[in-house]
């Protein structure tokens, strides 16, 4: 779910070239972090939303966006932040999910609700990105970054990150 506005197609395209610093196979466009492009007088206003409240990459995204547009001769740019609607993993598109898995991170299972219940063994049927087995289990709800959980494959025994659903 990426909002599109044909008028700024050339700008949307540029965002494919800005990678997430922790998951370089995903662009900020894949993640659905950019919510809107609009203009106010002669300034382009880009609205972005954080994946997690404390996501340390938000300032970096702002700098990257401004730098990328400058490279393309768009000088008057302002980046603003919104929390509404709150970011959800459902905005990650299918192509990006495939790239995530190839990179070794199990993609979030669409529309799943892995929340609120005690001792639920995390999301079931998370597919091991290495051997594709679904015989996997959660090791920790928090992985190397806030957006990931740590899983282990019971067949190939490799640990892996799962991009958890919010």
């Amino acid at each position, binding site marked *: 779910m990426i909002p599109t506005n044909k008028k700024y197609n050339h700008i949307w395209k540029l965002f494919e070239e800005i990678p997430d610093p922790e998951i370089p196979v995903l662009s900020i466009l894949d993640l659905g972090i950019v919510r809107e492009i609009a203009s106010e007088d002669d300034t382009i206003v880009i609205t972005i939303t*954080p994946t*997690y*409240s*404390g*996501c*340390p990459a938000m300032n970096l995204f702002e700098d990257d966006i401004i730098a990328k547009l400058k490279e393309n001769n768009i000088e008057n740019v302002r980046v603003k932040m*919104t*929390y*509404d*609607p*709150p*970011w959800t993993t459902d905005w990650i598109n299918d192509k990006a999910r495939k790239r995530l898995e190839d990179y070794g991170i199990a993609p979030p299972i669409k529309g799943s609700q892995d*929340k*609120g*219940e*005690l*001792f639920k063994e995390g999301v079931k049927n998370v597919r091991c990105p290495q051997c594709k087995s679904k015989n996997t289990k959660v*090791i*920790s*709800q*928090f*992985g*190397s*970054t*806030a957006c990931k959980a*740590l899983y282990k494959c019971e067949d190939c025994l490799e640990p892996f990150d799962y991009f958890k659903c*919010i």
Partner: protein
Amino acid sequence: MKNSLFKYCLRLGDNSLILGHRLAEYCSNGPYLEEDISITNTSLDLIGQAEAILKYAAKVEGEGRTEDDLAYKRPEIEFYNVQLTEQPNGNFARITARQFFMDAFNFYLYSALKESTDNTISAIAAKSLKEVTYHLRRSSEWVIRLGDGTNESKIKMQEAINDFWRYTSEMFEMDEVDEELIAKGIAVDLKPIQDLWNKKVDEILAMATLIRPEDAYMATGSRKGYHTEYLGYILAEMQYLPRAYPTAKW
């Protein structure tokens, strides 16, 4: 109205900021690597939530201050976090008890604040709730695991629950700030939240085979900016750099 909303935002933001700071102090002291990462991730979520709400507080105040000014340049008496959040870490059971009490409170609070008539507060609440849901699940699981664990873990968990119990009623105190904002649909009545909190605490303590302490002396004061001795030390550390070098930038 402006003053009440400003103060209300400070309460929300300060709870997250101070608890987030306490958890950050535990970085590298977790019982094992995964748990260490969980603690610091929770800390990061809380500090992010604090940043969002303090940014809004600064805007509501309209005096040109930023969220950083509010975090780093306010004196102790102007902090409104509940005293529970500032209590020192100690052992892992204590961190777990403090976190569980706050997570359960935040979970029901944000669930209700999602419907706030103030659009910024409702958006931040909806965002925070997604994160707090994970926090509550994790801290609940640890209370149960330690409570229904070995003799030693059970004793430590029960001691932590007992020690922090006196700080739990403060979360639900309401004053004229709440009254004014509840009437406008901005803030929420904490009484039903207290009922939900009690139910959740009873449920988890029962599963953990722990005993719910009786209410005795209950701490109070944070709504007026009164704190235990511990907050001053946190602020001394947190605020030293921005106060000593006011022009320092990242």
